């Protein structure tokens, strides 16, 4: 016991275990260190994919060739999509903050399978490496778009096999993480933490993990078949041999639609953490928010057909898919209304994380409502495969998950690194990002409505005004993002020390030191109430010293058990 006591004292950042230096990180099974490993890798890929995006916008500044050839443009939009979707959006919040914060929130010392957790990071890095190799080998990076639609993905001379293999391996990594989280949440909650005392971030991750486990294998086999098709010509997706390309689209979207909920549910979980913290109020409709996460996960499973309204499906199927698509709006609406109601009559403190969350609610609502335009059969036909879809996707994914990733960074940054950033600059950066974001993507709705097709290298001159506006927006947005990360980086190096609970949060991670110690808790705490109770403590941090039972009752006349 003595050696573990020694380990309790230091922060996880300084702890030196069996391995020292860099090995102490890349061989660490500590969920906090693995979270930071993910964070550093994910940041690199985010900047790579962002640069690709900026280059695409630059190309679209003028009709015809501006800075690159059409073939390069095709590869760039594919890579932008693949890297952003598979390397950033899907893993960012679960793998970084889920890993770091969730075990602390439920009162555990680590996840259920720490070694598997490290393994999933290596899978992630392997997938990422494969994606990078695909750039420089064979005919160059895939030019199919991130959806890899057949038959083009079978015929393309580019290096599609490597890019799909990368996505396959990355899928494996998400499955492992999801599996780990489900078991962790089932088995490792602290005594007294019932399901409905669990923080909503953990609920969001729980729903996400189920989708990861149940949907990802389908894309795994589908992408694997594309590779087989390219290498051997099996015929399952090749129309020349009797294969059916529409069947490919079904199998792709059976995963990839639930995947958008993998992307957004953890972000929604963080919203439910940040709002009660800064409104100084219990969350409004805790159970409804928790259950609506599961509702979204369940219905989200059954709506994949809405990506294929014009690909060839029976009218009955289209109507059913359209109806189910509208149904997803209900649990989403439940969340939005409960969030707004949480702010009502709260004692709101406008800190940087809350600014990002309010930006999220605004932008995500636009994204969600335009999603209904796409879910409706008649209007969808007009805007299918236009910039309208691109705009919608970026409003929900970047505006939803991306902005929330920034919010999450600002919310838990002091906890993770024990340093505080300049809040004023964070708020200014947030404002620049929102302005840039809307200038970049809103014109795309208009262009799409006017008939600008997505993934086109060239366009008619009358659209140029909107394209210029959009490109200028991309510059503003990037300036904001760089400014924001610069602020955080400066804080990391030179920022003042952060307090244990700088925001007045009520969940368990705010009860441990900043940064947390290696084992998070000296003693597994006992939970006596809900997660967002502001007026009385709901956690007993040292049950053995405070003489309480596991159910939170005081010990009466009993002697303390030896620990």
């Amino acid at each position: 016991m003595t050696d573990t006591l020694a380990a309790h004292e230091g922060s996880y950042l300084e702890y030196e275990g069996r391995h020292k230096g860099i090995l102490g990180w890349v061989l660490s099974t500590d969920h906090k260190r693995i979270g930071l490993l993910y964070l550093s890798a994910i940041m690199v890929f985010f900047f790579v994919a962002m640069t690709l995006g900026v280059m695409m916008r630059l190309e679209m500044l003028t009709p015809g060739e501006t800075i690159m050839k059409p073939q390069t443009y095709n590869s760039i939009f594919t890579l932008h999509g693949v890297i952003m979707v598979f390397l950033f959006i899907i893993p960012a919040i679960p793998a970084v903050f889920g890993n770091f914060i969730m075990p602390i929130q439920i009162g555990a010392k680590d996840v259920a399978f720490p070694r598997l957790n490290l393994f999933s990071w290596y899978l992630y890095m392997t997938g990422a490496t494969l994606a990078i190799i695909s750039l420089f080998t064979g005919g160059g990076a895939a030019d199919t778009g991130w959806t890899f639609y057949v038959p083009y993905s079978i015929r393309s001379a580019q290096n599609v096999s490597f890019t799909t293999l990368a996505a396959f391996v990355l899928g494996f990594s998400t499955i492992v993480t999801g599996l780990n989280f489900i078991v962790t949440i089932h088995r490792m909650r602290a005594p007294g933490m019932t399901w409905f005392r669990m923080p909503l971030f953990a609920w969001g991750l729980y729903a996400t993990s189920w989708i990861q486990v149940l949907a990802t294998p389908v894309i795994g086999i589908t992408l694997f078949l594309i590779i087989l098709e390219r290498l051997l010509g099996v015929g399952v997706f090749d129309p020349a041999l009797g294969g059916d390309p529409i069947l490919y689209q079904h199998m792709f979207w059976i995963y990839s639609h639930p995947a958008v909920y993998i992307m957004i549910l953890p972000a929604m979980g963080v919203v439910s953490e940040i709002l009660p913290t800064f409104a100084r109020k219990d969350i409004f409709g805790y159970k409804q928010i928790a259950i609506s996460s599961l509702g979204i996960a369940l219905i989200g499973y059954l709506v994949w057909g809405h990506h294929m309204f014009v690909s060839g499906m029976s009218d009955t199927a289209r109507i059913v898919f359209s109806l189910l698509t509208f149904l997803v709006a209900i649990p989403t609406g439940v969340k939005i209304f409960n969030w707004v109601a949480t702010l009502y009559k709260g004692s709101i403190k406008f800190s940087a994380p809350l600014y990002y969350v309010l930006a999220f609610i605004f932008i995500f609502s636009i994204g969600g409502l335009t999603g209904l335009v796409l879910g409706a059969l008649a209007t969808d036909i007009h805007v299918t495969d236009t910039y309208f879809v691109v705009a919608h996707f970026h409003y929900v994914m970047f505006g939803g998950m991306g902005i929330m990733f920034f919010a999450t960074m600002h919310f838990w940054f002091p906890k993770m690194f024990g340093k505080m950033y300049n809040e004023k600059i964070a708020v200014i950066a947030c404002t620049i990002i929102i302005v840039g974001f809307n200038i970049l993507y809103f014109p795309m709705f208009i262009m799409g409505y006017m008939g600008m097709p997505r993934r086109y290298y060239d366009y008619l001159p009358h659209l140029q005004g909107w394209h210029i506006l959009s490109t200028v927006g991309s510059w503003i947005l990037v300036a904001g993002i760089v400014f924001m990360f610069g602020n955080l980086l400066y804080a990391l190096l030179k920022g003042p020390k952060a307090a244990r609970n700088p925001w007045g949060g009520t969940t368990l991670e705010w009860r441990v030191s900043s940064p947390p110690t290696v084992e998070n808790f000296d003693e597994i705490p006992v939970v006596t109430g809900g997660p967002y109770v502001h007026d009385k403590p709901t956690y007993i941090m040292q049950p053995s010293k405070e003489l309480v039972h596991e159910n939170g009752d005081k010990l009466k006349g009993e002697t303390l058990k030896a620990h």
Partner: protein
Amino acid sequence: MIEHTEALEHTATAEHSHAAAHVHRDDEGSKMGMWLFLFTELLLFGGMFLLYGGYRFAYADGFKVAAADMNTFIGAINTILLLTSSLSVALSIAALQQNQKKLCLSLLWFTLLCGLAFLVNKYFEWSHEIHNGIYPGGPALENMSNGEILYFGLYYVMTGLHGLHVVVGMIFIGFVMVFIARDKITSINFQKLENAGLYWHLVDVIWIFLFPLFYLLH
């Protein structure tokens, strides 16, 4: 048996709430993780079965013609082999629980042997087809209808993927055997063996669906 598991579960929870995480051992959690992993495997093959169903519906005639080419006898032998090996792996767990380490190991050896025999049969089946020019892009396929081409395409992919799982299962069991020999897996700490058994049963269950779909449906 049931009492035993409950007792074990009890110690696991007690351990979990009191002692530190560095002695963390949670058999129930480990089993749960394995089951979740098996779900993902089922969905992986589920995608393949979906394809099979779709194409069987679209090309019923071609599938019938192609299926006539399969050797039902070898298929049946392989089914018997896998079912027997599932029994022996289940028995090995019971043997270990009763502290019969030697019996447990020999049952596992028998399981491996069955798995190997299955693979050898599969090898002869495949090489027979390949010899006849039936493989993706092979010469015999040129004269075949689309339905037959897809049947054989799916045959190779699905049985190939299943064969890969047999190999992985055998490696898994092999590691477990090493652990048993070194007394890392014992009568009171056998969750790894049980997980290997679960995996082996999955391999078995998938074959039970592959067998009728490819061999018996003419």
